[in-house]
């Protein structure tokens, strides 16, 4: 009888522990970041892959979505935007026009791909200096970069918009290594930001395999990026369908994100990514 009571008592104790213990429920970390003081002027950066999901016949940006994309950009008023999966220069021109001449922008070369990345930089009132746009060749792809001065006191910012291969972890790793090489040599003395759809996940929540070479390559890619940068939107959560965090914004280790938020009600049409918005304190 006593033994049975002891086992029963332990069962109740453990059950109580299972319900009462556990991490404090502070809500979504991105909400915490989002609630912080927004009065101070911070650099606001948006990264958005505006292409469609894999099941669609056309997975690149649909021109009919561009007015809604422009409207969302205007309503969030980012200082710079990194866009992925445009079909080319023509779509960028349409987007810039829809943004009512508030942004400068340039797209990367198309190279052997069928889609391009682009960077948009907000025009500052009273400033005539144009951002300097560059094409970055990394592996067999191109990324776009814009160098500009956000405030007169701060160092120049180099913003890179990149899109890594969706199907090969090995190609992603080579692409990222070459992108890092470019930042190491081409951005000395400047503040470098990488806003990208990197197409990999390193979450501890996803444990579909014990060990794969693909997971290993993506781990190497992420570790390489973290050698030089910090992952500014770490707490923002999933950025794409199927609860995947595959869009990232990396900044210098001295920078911190005062706000990092995935705008989850903002997808248009059959887009499979949501915009990632980060406010950065340098």
């Amino acid at each position, binding site marked *: 009888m006593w*033994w049975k009571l002891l086992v029963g008592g332990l069962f109740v104790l453990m059950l109580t*522990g299972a319900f009462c213990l556990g991490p404090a429920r502070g809500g979504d970390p991105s909400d915490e970041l989002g609630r912080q003081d927004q009065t101070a002027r911070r650099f606001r950066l948006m990264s958005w892959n505006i292409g469609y999901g894999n099941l669609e016949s056309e997975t690149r940006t649909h021109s009919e979505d561009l007015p809604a994309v422009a409207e969302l950009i205007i309503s969030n008023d980012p200082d710079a935007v990194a866009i992925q999966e445009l079909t080319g220069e023509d779509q960028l021109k349409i987007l810039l026009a829809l943004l009512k001449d508030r942004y400068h922008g340039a797209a990367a070369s198309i190279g052997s791909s069928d889609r391009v990345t682009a960077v948009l930089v907000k025009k500052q009132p009273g400033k005539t200096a144009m951002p300097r746009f560059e094409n970055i060749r990394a592996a067999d792809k191109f990324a776009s970069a814009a160098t500009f001065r956000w405030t007169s006191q701060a160092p120049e910012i180099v913003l890179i918009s990149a899109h890594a291969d969706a199907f090969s972890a090995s190609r992603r790793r080579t692409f990222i290594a070459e992108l890092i090489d470019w930042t190491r040599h081409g951005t000395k003395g400047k503040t470098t930001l990488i806003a990208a759809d990197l197409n990999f996940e390193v979450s501890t929540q996803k444990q579909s395999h014990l060990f794969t070479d693909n997971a290993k390559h993506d781990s190497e890619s992420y570790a390489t990026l973290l050698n030089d940068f910090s992952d500014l939107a770490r707490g923002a959560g999933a950025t794409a369908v199927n609860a995947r965090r595959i869009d990232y914004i990396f900044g210098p280790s001295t920078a911190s994100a005062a706000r990092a938020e995935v705008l989850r009600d903002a997808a248009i049409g059959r887009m499979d990514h949501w915009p990632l918005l980060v406010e950065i304190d340098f």
Partner: protein
Amino acid sequence: MITQLRFELRKLIRSKGFYLSFAALAAFVLLMLWGFYSYAQQKTSGLAGEQFKYTYESKSYFNGLTFALYSLIFAFSLVIPIFVVMNAGSQIAGEQRSGTLRMMCIRPVSRVAIVLSKFLVVAIHTYLLMAFFIALNLLVGLLFIGWGSLELYPGPLNLVDQPGTILRDEAVWRFFYASFSGAWALLVVAAVANLFSVLFENPVTAVAATLAVYLTLYIVGRIEFFITLSPYFFTTNMDFWRDVLKPEIPWASFNQQAATCGAYIFGLLLLSIVIFERKDITN
């Protein structure tokens, strides 16, 4: 109870399965050593360097502690549970199959004491398996690969979200903690096997049923179709044991998951006792 426990321990030590489980784990360590050694050779050779510019895989990364970590994580989910289930599943059903259970029950010992002593023996065996496996991995790692700090990177083992390091001495302590957290997590499977051992009269059925439940939940919990269901599987709760191998142990969730596993263990054990007390043993 103590006398009954002593009998059960003697039976465990005299069984061939007891030694087989340690021999099989030792064989797994040798297999891991070969796999790890050839992988490390391939990844630190000149060819790998030509293919990729940057890598954290270096001679210092591939050390005995990394070997022990990989080996432990790979074996924990699919190898060690088999031996735990084999032992736990055959405890009551095995006695019934061989016709000795009826004789045990007519002796002046309560049925609760029989179930508890058998489960305690399973718990001791489980801990010994974990401790042996960890100690052997560390020893083999030290002798054949050499020691260093434990470097952890996000991705392959899904252990951390950002790169981290556990210094050598601290890492050895963490492996020591893992022997307890791992054994606690494995006791959930042992409790399921114990229940099936009470329910079924054939030990093979009890073992097969437990492994079927365990593997089904383990696999289903890793398919993203069932992402909303997986938090309710005991296999998901069992993963808490790995938290002690993270640079910063998340104590709050560790304690919660450990308590959840405890609720499974004692809940299933209580159910086994209640059923066994009412069981009509006819053969």
